[in-house]
């Protein structure tokens, strides 16, 4: 549980490395996994398998010479049924990307409910971004930019319309999240990759009972 167990992967030549836990939420097939794949590997796959449970990836971005941010990304399953697992992933997350699909009207409603849940249950300082994905399919658009933008402003979210397919706004999305993280407020970012919250995933260990009847 101590911070000494931090990862010590690539240490930037100079400057500070911040490490953040980021979670992706949103309805099934809105393109969460595709966004991550684009961000992490700069690839797109039309036939990527659906996510079961969750998947984990990391990506590091340099904000400036002095600041590097490493995202530990939890990509979750979108099907409503897997909802009960979500807290395990967003608990202690520093930031979240809530994704909807501009061609699916239901997906924005779902996104809103995720935002609500995050604001209620997750870390109070969590930075949330709303991503309207599949912007390349503008011909089939059903959710207007203005509508989503208005909602994002109202709820205090970062907002981007993205396309995992064409890579539009994907890096911008993650970079602006990184920038919005309260880096300055972190008194002393650990030189060896530590973040606001060191642990990848926190499981409520405290729930442990001290063994039961044998």
């Amino acid at each position, binding site marked *: 549980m101590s911070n000494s*167990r*931090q*990862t*010590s*992967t690539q240490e930037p030549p100079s400057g500070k490395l911040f490490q953040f836990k980021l979670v992706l939420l949103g309805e*099934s*097939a809105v393109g969460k996994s595709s966004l991550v794949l684009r961000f992490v590997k700069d690839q797109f796959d*039309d*036939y*990527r*398998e*659906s*996510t*079961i*449970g*969750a*998947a*984990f*990836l*990391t990506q590091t971005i340099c904000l400036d010479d002095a600041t590097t941010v490493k995202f*530990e990304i939890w990509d979750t*399953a*979108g*099907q409503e*049924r*897997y909802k*009960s*697992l979500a807290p*395990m992933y967003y608990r202690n997350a520093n930031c979240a990307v809530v994704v909807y699909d501009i061609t699916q009207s239901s997906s924005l409603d779902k996104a809103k409910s995720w935002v609500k849940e995050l604001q209620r249950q997750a870390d109070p300082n969590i930075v949330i971004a709303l991503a309207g994905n599949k912007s390349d399919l503008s011909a089939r658009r059903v959710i207007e930019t203005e509508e989503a933008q208005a909602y994002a402003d109202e709820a205090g979210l970062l907002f981007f319309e993205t396309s995992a397919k064409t890579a539009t706004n994907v890096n911008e999305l993650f970079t602006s999240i990184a920038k919005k993280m309260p880096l300055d407020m972190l008194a002393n970012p650990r030189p060896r990759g530590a973040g606001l919250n060191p*642990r*990848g*995933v926190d*499981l409520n260990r405290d*729930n*442990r*009972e*001290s*063994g*039961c*009847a*044998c």
Partner: protein
Amino acid sequence: MATFATCTDLHRHPSTRNAGLAAISFCANDNADDELQGVPPATSYIFGQCQFLKSLSHPNLCEYLDAIKGKRDRVFVVQEHYSNSLDLNRITLEKEQESTSPRGQSITRIRKWAAQIIDALIYLNSHGIVHRALTISNILLTEDDFVKLSNYGLYYMTKGGTLVQFSIGEPHYLSPMALAQPYTLSLQDYSTDLWSVGVIMTELFLGVSFWRADRSDLDELIASLFALRKLSTTSNNWIQDCSENVGINPIVLSFLKTGRAPDQDRVKEQEREQDKREEQIQEQADQTSKEENELNTFICFLRACLSLEAFNSIEPAQIRNHDFFKALDVLHREGEQATGYRSKMWHQKPYIQSTSLPDYEGEVKRLRDAITQRRLALNEDKGTKKHPTKNELLYKLPLSQVFYLWKLAGGDVEAQFRRNGRLVGTPPIQLLPKVVHVAETKDERYQHHVRDIADLFSDVPCILPLDNLESEILKSIHEPNKDQFSWDTDYFLFSDPDEMNFLQGTMGDDKYKDRGTSGKDDDFLYPDSMRFTNMNVAFRKAPASLSSSTPSNTVGASASGGAPSLAQQPNKARVKVPLAIREKDLGYQYQRLSMFTDLLLQYPASRAEILHHSKIDIPPLLRGKVWAAILGVVGDYQEVYNGYDKYTEKPTDRQIELDVPRCHQYNQLMFSPAGHEKMKRLLKCWVKANENQAYWQGLDSCCAPFLTLNFNDEALAFACIQLFLPKFLKDMFLHDNSQVIHEYLAVFKHLLSYHDPELSSHLDHIRFIPQLYAIPWFMTLFTHIFPLDKVYHLWDKILVGPSSLPLFVGIAILQQFRQQLLRSEFNEAISIFSESFPGMDIEKCIETALAMCRVTPPSTCWLSYDQESREIREQLHLPITISTAAIPGKVVNGEVGGQKPNGKEISQSSAGPTAPVDHNIYSSSKASSDHQELKRPKEIEKRISGGVGVLHWWEEPLSIETMDAELAPRIHRSDFVKLRQQAMVIDIRPEEEFCNGHYPLSIQMVPGQLGLLVHILGKLKKNYLVVIANRGDSGPEFASALVRHGFSRVALLMGGIDALRITEPVMSLTSNSAIPGNQASPSLSTVSTASTAVTGTTTTTIITTPTICSCKPFRQAITVQSKIKDEVAVQKCKTPFTQKKMRTTMAA
């Protein structure tokens, strides 16, 4: 009813005896632009449609065997093939007669051909297919002059030609109505094939071309066709109104109009010849009138075929009743009988076997006669013919298997095309005009000499040579230094002699007992004689050369003799040759294919043998059916599948729609539009059939293997899924599965500790918990993380293994990354699992998993969250009046425990283990007990009849939190007694209690001392460590500490000392034990059982230790049995071991 007895892919139709294989190749549209819009590529559509064509089976159709996607948009389609065709026949006729004057065929022969062609067309129509490309050259003929249509699927698979740049069909034979007609399936479409029949038959009879224009003069032909088409719209009878300008050969036209052949004399003469041949000499006058009659009906028939008027349009099914065929039907039927062609062999599966059963023997005899005759003929021919035994080895094999073996022998369709110079350099396809390639001269096409090497499509098939296949198979079989399998050895059970083997005795062999009791009526479908004729010659010899020492227990032998003991303790080293090599080995696969085909035909009677042989490996070609047999699919599964509504919209549809296009799309079947359709139907059907469960993402992945293996038999795929999920993914798809999955993962963690404490405690330490990575593993049984080819091999073993095997596979996967994981912190560790393990060695993985599974006491992987066992438990709490149907018939070890509130036991109660994870799944035919018998297992019945049963407190399921918190598993006393001397038993109760009584040979230890004693414990080198503690004591912590200290196979005894205090006939538990020849367990409990039996008391104090051996820090437990009661007990037990122990005890 033999479930697969009528499956066409397991049979070889006698008429296909001399079938060859050939392939055609063509280019599909390059629709890359459309693909961006989400339209699947044309090749993919074609590939999917071809799968359905493969399932068609009719004696007058060449079977489709495979579709292969080549480079770019090229497709290869492999089909049954014969070198003779109507066209060739015509040419040879011309040649034979050495005249250039037109020569036609006799009406008798034409009639026979026409009937067979139309039969085939009717069959195609009934499956929604029109031929559209019927020409004189793709009507092939067998040696027996039997018609086999070829290339009938081209129009169907290319969506009516819209997916290719060439037009389908040869204008020469194409109906005018089919020209430029959009792709639909209307009545008219069915009738267009009749036009072709009409043209072909006219040509055959007259011996001249139907059209005036040359076959390759497309311009004129097409002009003629359009003229005809126009004519037919204005005329009620185009034949009469047709002028010579239209372009029909004048001879043909006058024949059709007048009904007079241009050269009547010739026809007559020929008819006479024919009749002489048939030795039907009649009077001349009769003859003439008969001929005229015949000719008249023939022309009527032709006119009907060639009618173009919509009101007149007629379908193949109708024309088959034409007067023209009346004469034939009698003859035809006789011919059918004589050669053994019987339509019932070609029914769509499945159908009720009993309808054909009475005839079976007759057919067998006929079949056998035909074969003997052929053999005799072959023997006579020896010396004269080039290949006297051509296809002798192969001709019983279904063509799909022949093709498979051909590929194994190094055959490659694309390479074959290249070898024939057919695929050199493809110029830009789009530039070519939209015409059919037609060879320039007739002769050319028969020499298979095609100059246009870059053809979009050529209907000249590329022959796949089979000449050497047989000798190569034989060579491969007799190759020296082949890995040898002993045929009656159960390799699955092979284990180290010094090790426990918990699988031994629990799997496989029980099935034979079943067989005795289960209905014989449906088991032995095949008479014994059939079994032998069915045996392949080479195969029957084979076991002798393959089997090392044991008398060969071949299928036939085992079936006619008594039940063989297949599941013997392996007596030889394990299989040495890697699976990958075995699967590529021609001779080996030939033998496996023959054997499994044979076994499948006799399934379900042969289920035990199928299981047995499947443990070695499963021939990939038959995997779908073999899996179904292993799972126990029986009955009319098609009917069951049909019974579910797959079309009504449901809320889950949306998710299914989203998931199917993402499910295993690298696989061509899954990628094809046909695959998407089938997958959706299958999932919808599952949702409908399992209303207490829900569609979870991941279920699609789970179903994919079954669909790809039974692509043409959705119903079978569905039946498999319905049996597979309850067995291996029980309750995983409940509406709320969180308990289930959590518990499963907790057990997984415990098992990891049990086998790899170092890894387990490291992962626990970095909090790399299974919830984060293993959910997709277990929810989809690895289909989500491995590509299908790996999944097949993995499931081959999982299916024949206990349902706990997947857990061990999970451990084996972790172990393949062991070093990496041990060095990793959380982030690196989890990154390893975000990829789909490209380097995973599945065979090694399986082997490791099995090795662990064998030595793991089953009780350590019990799941409490098992709906069924819970129900049973609840049932058992009730005063027992259980309706027979109330208990599902599949629980193997029922449980009844006796406990009074004060903790003293009722002697007559017996505690069997709860066995939700069922190591014994095959002890009864799961399928039949689930769906048919619903019989209460004898085990439970017996116990229930003994009295009221309640669970012991320690048999109650643990809470998930408790399980999560603990690192080591718990073991039930029934397994504990099996471990015997292999286990080091550590008792951590306080010293006084220990002195008051303990398990013999246990050592006492204070939990706090562990750190000091680790070293010594390590030296004792016992295979198992079992911790005994008091209820509520620190047993779990102590066990976890042992794990962290690196001790493997540490478990906590469920119930601690309480579990050993009860008296119950453990014998009944251990009688099923893994140890062969187990007479009496030296466990305390056995002794006390005996004592109970003797004294007849209901309560027994089991342990008394008046003398304490105080050799600290360990106290070697020395049980001095006290007084008379135990003396008697020991005597009653009379096992050498106990007596010996007694002696040492006394000495001490």
